[in-house]
């Protein structure tokens, strides 16, 4: 056990300060999941529910008509809502695809620019998936490259 934990920490040596997600989801514009990965030791259904609930908040944030706020034009939506144990962050692409990142609340070294950077990586990889001619838009994402990128951002089970 101790041996495994050691591997977990030293693997991302240059990213020791990064946030690790407990759940990452990609939701199609029609609001069904294209990709959802959560830390295997947790109750997955709970995460699915959390992601599902967050979509309402996303809709609210992006459909505010008449608001002249500058940040309304941003793709990054920031903290959607905190729950007791988790913080949920959102991001919407211009193609109306939503990314949701769920982070453990106890992760105290939360930095906004780190979350933004995670979303950027997600967005870049998702764009690559869209440009894979063998990928049919709307299908679940099944890409090794995408999987690796997400793995690097997830809490590793020790």
């Amino acid at each position, binding site marked *: 056990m101790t041996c495994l934990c050691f591997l977990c920490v030293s693997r991302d040596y240059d990213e020791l300060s990064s946030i690790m997600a407990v759940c990452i989801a990609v939701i199609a514009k029609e609001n069904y999941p294209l990709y959802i990965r959560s830390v295997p030791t947790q109750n997955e259904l709970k995460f699915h529910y959390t992601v599902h609930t967050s979509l309402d908040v996303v809709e609210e944030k992006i459909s505010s008509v008449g608001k002249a706020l500058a940040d309304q034009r941003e793709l990054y939506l920031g903290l959607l809502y905190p729950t007791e144990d988790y913080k949920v962050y959102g991001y919407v692409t211009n193609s109306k695809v939503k990314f949701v990142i769920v982070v453990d609340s106890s992760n105290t070294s939360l930095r906004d620019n780190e979350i933004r950077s995670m979303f950027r990586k997600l967005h870049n990889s998702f764009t690559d998936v869209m440009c894979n001619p063998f990928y049919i838009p709307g299908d679940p994402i099944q890409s*090794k490259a995408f999987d690796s990128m997400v793995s690097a951002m997830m809490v590793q089970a020790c």
Partner: protein
Amino acid sequence: MSRQSNRTSDSKKMNSELFTLTYGALVTQLCKDYENDEEVNKQLDKMGYNIGVRLIEDFLARSSVGRCHDFRETADVIAKVAFKMYLGVTPSVTNWSPAGDEFSLILESNPLVDFVELPDNHNNLVYSSLLCGVLRGSLEMVQMAVDVRFAQDTLRGDNVTEIRMKFIKRIEENLPAGDE
């Protein structure tokens, strides 16, 4: 966030992305039209040939290369001028056969396969087969019959893409080139 992000470099990149994505759409269309990968490879090669016999004129008009005196010179022109001009990459020329009639082009990156991940059911697909046809067709127009094939392919797990080119024979000028 401004939309006017670095227009010139974006334009050039967009252009190669247009080509890459269009090629991808073609390959997937062929995969739908033909039952097996070998047929798709053949079609891509044929289409590449048709492009090659016309591309050579464009190439000769744009570049200032004169007649190549030997196969080595041809290899250099292909790698350093043609590939650079059309695909923006410069493969290295290596693995010459002792007779000097065969060489390899090693591409660290192949723009045709940007973003491509081959699904499991296409193990025999040589995705970039178009390139073989293009090279064969264009060289035929300058009186060289060559054989071109992929020896390594990053899409199939290799570290680099390797195109192997072999000189077969000189084509007599008065023979019309066969259009497939």
